[in-house]
């Protein structure tokens, strides 16, 4: 940042500079930078394999970078109330798009997830998560503060609608993330402990249910349990990539898994990073994610506003869980789950939606004094 602001600067940007969490911004920028490097490392091999120009994916990703950064910083300027409004509108729009998806979307790899809007293909399921997190937080917080208000029912109903729409696609992974957001917020909003235990027990039932209802979930589990099968190829290859990389990696451009992994630039991008730059880079990425999540939690720990706490927590759960699921899949700690690594994997929708979500986190975790930003 070449622009500096005086402490006494009371302009919008000046106040923003002094109240926003600059450490989180720095961490996010680092993530984006690592993502850009890894996209350049991994995606040319994939692009060449599918017959596109080498830098096809790189160019497309970089096209989204600037808008994503602008969206993130722009959203971080909003007050909590503006964030809430934007989320309500965003959630409604996302739900409409989700309803349109089964009708209009093209089937890619067995699922209908992408919509073509004005020449851009977008994935409504990426946008619905942060919007839901904020709206649900509002509902839970209102219910907590006014027992007469049926906020929990509304939040749960919204969860049911969105989850149903995601399962139609089918997108079990996003449903799981959505469930985690809803569950965590409910938990933070004072869910009776007996129900916490009940939901904890329900989770395995949901997983078992998904296993039997969705064939691709079943095959992923089977591959996890029996990695010798040919289907576990991607994960097994990813593991050997980490092994090849060792501590400091084989060096930029020296990786080999990107030549054979179909999803080297998306779900398995960390394996490319591990092979070329070593476990050092991977641990750095983990630390960045952990830092952003825990730093966010620590900021809202001092927060007095329940809505802000719940909304931020929901957004961070989404962000952190997505990262954990991606990395754990790649490392064969859990069945392979098609989930992008936030800000690092290739994918425009994912990038813009995450920028929106993290922009909201930045907005909500700005230092506020008293009721500042909550009115108006």
């Amino acid at each position, binding site marked *: 940042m070449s622009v500096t602001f005086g402490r006494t600067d009371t302009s919008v940007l000046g106040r923003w500079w002094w109240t926003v969490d600059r450490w989180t911004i720095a961490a996010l920028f680092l993530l984006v930078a690592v993502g850009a490097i890894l996209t350049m490392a991994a995606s040319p091999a994939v692009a060449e394999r599918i017959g596109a120009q080498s830098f096809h994916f790189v160019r497309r990703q970089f096209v989204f970078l600037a808008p994503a950064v602008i969206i993130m910083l722009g959203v971080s300027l909003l007050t*909590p*109330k503006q964030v809430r409004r934007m989320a309500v509108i965003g959630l409604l729009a996302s739900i409409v798009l989700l309803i349109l998806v089964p009708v209009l979307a093209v089937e890619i790899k067995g699922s209908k997830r992408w919509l073509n809007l004005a020449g851009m293909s977008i994935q409504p399921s990426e946008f619905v998560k942060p919007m839901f997190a904020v709206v649900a937080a*509002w509902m839970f*917080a*209102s219910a*907590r*503060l*006014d*027992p*007469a*208000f049926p906020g929990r029912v509304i939040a749960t109903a919204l969860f049911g609608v969105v989850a149903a729409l995601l399962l139609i696609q089918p997108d079990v992974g996003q449903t799981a993330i959505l469930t985690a957001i809803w569950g*965590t917020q409910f938990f*933070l*909003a*004072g869910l*009776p402990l007996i129900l916490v235990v009940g939901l904890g027990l329900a989770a395995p039932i949901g997983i078992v249910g998904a296993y039997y209802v969705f064939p691709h979930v079943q095959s992923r589990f089977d591959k996890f349990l029996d*990695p*010798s099968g040919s289907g*576990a*190829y991607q994960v*097994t290859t990813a*593991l*050997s990539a*980490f*092994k090849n*990389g*060792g*501590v400091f990696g084989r060096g930029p451009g020296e990786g080999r898994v990107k030549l054979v992994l179909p999803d080297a630039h998306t779900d398995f991008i960390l394996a490319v990073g*591990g092979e070329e730059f*070593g*476990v050092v880079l*991977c*641990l750095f990425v*983990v*630390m960045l994610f*952990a830092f952003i*999540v*825990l730093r966010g*939690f*620590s900021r809202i*720990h001092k*927060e*007095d*506003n*329940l*809505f802000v*706490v*719940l909304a931020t*927590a929901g957004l961070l*759960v989404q962000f*952190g869980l997505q990262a*954990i699921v991606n*990395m*754990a899949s790649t*490392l064969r*700690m859990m069945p392979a789950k098609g989930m992008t690594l936030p800000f690092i994997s290739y994918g425009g929708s994912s990038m813009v939606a995450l920028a929106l979500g993290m922009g909201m986190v930045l907005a909500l975790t700005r230092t506020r004094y*008293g*009721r500042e930003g*909550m*009115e108006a």
Partner: protein
Amino acid sequence: MSIFAPRRHTPGFHAGDDLQAGAALRLDGVRMQAIETGRSRLVITALVFLLAFGAVGARMVDVAVIDRNPPKPHAQPQARTDELKMERADISDRTGVLLASSLPTVSLFARPEDLKAAKVDIESAAIRLVAVLPELDLEETIERLSSGRQFVYLKRNLTPRQHYDVNNLGIPGLLFQKGERRIYPHGPLASHAVGVTDVDNKGVAGIEKRFENAMRESREPLALSMDIRVQTIVRNELARSVEEFSAVGGTGMVMDVRTGELLAMVSLPDFDPNDPPPPTDPSMFNRATKGAYEMGSTFKLFNTAMALDLGKANINSSFDASKPLVFGGHTIHDDHALNRWMTVSEILIHSSNIGSARMALDAGTEAQRAFMSRIGMLQAPPLELPEVAGPLIPSPWREINTITIAFGHGLSVTPLQLLAGTAALVNGGEYHAPTLLARAPGDAIPAIRVLKPKTSENMRQLMRMVVTDGTGKKADVPGYEVGGKTGTAEKAGAGGYRKKAVLSSFIAAFPMDAPRYAVLMMIDEPQATKQTFGFITAGWTAAPAAGRVIAQIAPLLGLMPKTLPIPPSGASKGIARTGGGREVAAVE
């Protein structure tokens, strides 16, 4: 949880409403309670995340750095090739030389329906196919491809090059079937023993047929008793004789007299198992095991051994051969009649029919029959081949049969029976069933005592004398003490014996002081040549062939030649001794 103070404002959607209540920094009870619960649970959530990130990081280090043996099934299946699995086990000789093996091949077939469905121009497809596989007939190929059948074979056992070329044509509806093909690297060399398989890879003759199931179950090569070097020598020499005497065929065998193992078994004419003739072809007939012949004079060995073993005579006993033997309207002559009494050894050396007949009559019909049975002449030997015939036994067995059997007529046996019986005469008197399978070292060798050791010793002396002083001189190999007996049997034709159609055989063993191997060379219908001065008898035809075989195989089999006496001359009179030099035991 239940401390919900009544709110002074109406219920609404505005989470921020509470902020408007009361003084700016004062939190009311409800909000306080809610935020406190949230905070403590927030710490739990944060800890869960911390643990999860920690686990991911630990796993990264584990996979990348600590785990030295990561799961690597992705690299292995590509590098590993499947072990070649064949339907049939290989066949080798006793030294491990491959006699029969299997190679993977492909056969070309077509699905005419598919060609039709793909709208293939049958004629041009056939022309292109014949260009690659010139063995195919164009007309026939067109006919096959356009037939309405679901499946037609076009060509079996394509070479890899042909496979590639046909594949390159890219004609739809042509398909390949994986299979395997039996390969016989030595061609006809051991064809009668090894046998042959049919187009479906099923054994139809020889060892291939006899061990059909065993070879499909085992992966281990089946080791024959045969020594391919000995086999080669026997076949070469037999073929030379058959050619030289314009014979119709012949058979030659070598047997280890101590174990019954056959080191060579040749029957000419033979065939190439890689391209076998129809089963009815004469070349498919194994004379060695399936042809039953009246053996003629070689049978006198058994006759003599019988007389000696019964104690009716010793080698110096004399029998009246002064005049032809007349018996029941038949007159028995000698070919080279001496017209005097002859000793047992003279009878054998000069091959006297009259003397042999008198010896047999002395022993009696029953004793002869019992002896012939003991020595294996009355039953088919249990050799491991489907093509083993039994003898033709006279029935009833009268005295006249006793007389003719004494010199090898009236009882037809296979060359294999003759060889196995002779082996028992020289090896000390034990009969070993002949075998084509290599005996493992230490295997118990089944043996039946059929002669007294003394009788066997006498037989060795007599057989040696036949070679040194009798009809078998041309079989001698200096240094290897060959012993044997000639046999020239007139073959029975329509209306009696045919003078000019004979079976010439020489049965030999060596070295006679401690015999190791028995050799039989038999030439079917040899024709006289200038070199034999018009003779077709065994001494001129089969005996030299046996001598040539022994001269080559004895050194090959590791037998050390005896030291020969230095011919007497002026300078070395003192050293020369009659009756041979120092005897050296045979060494392996």
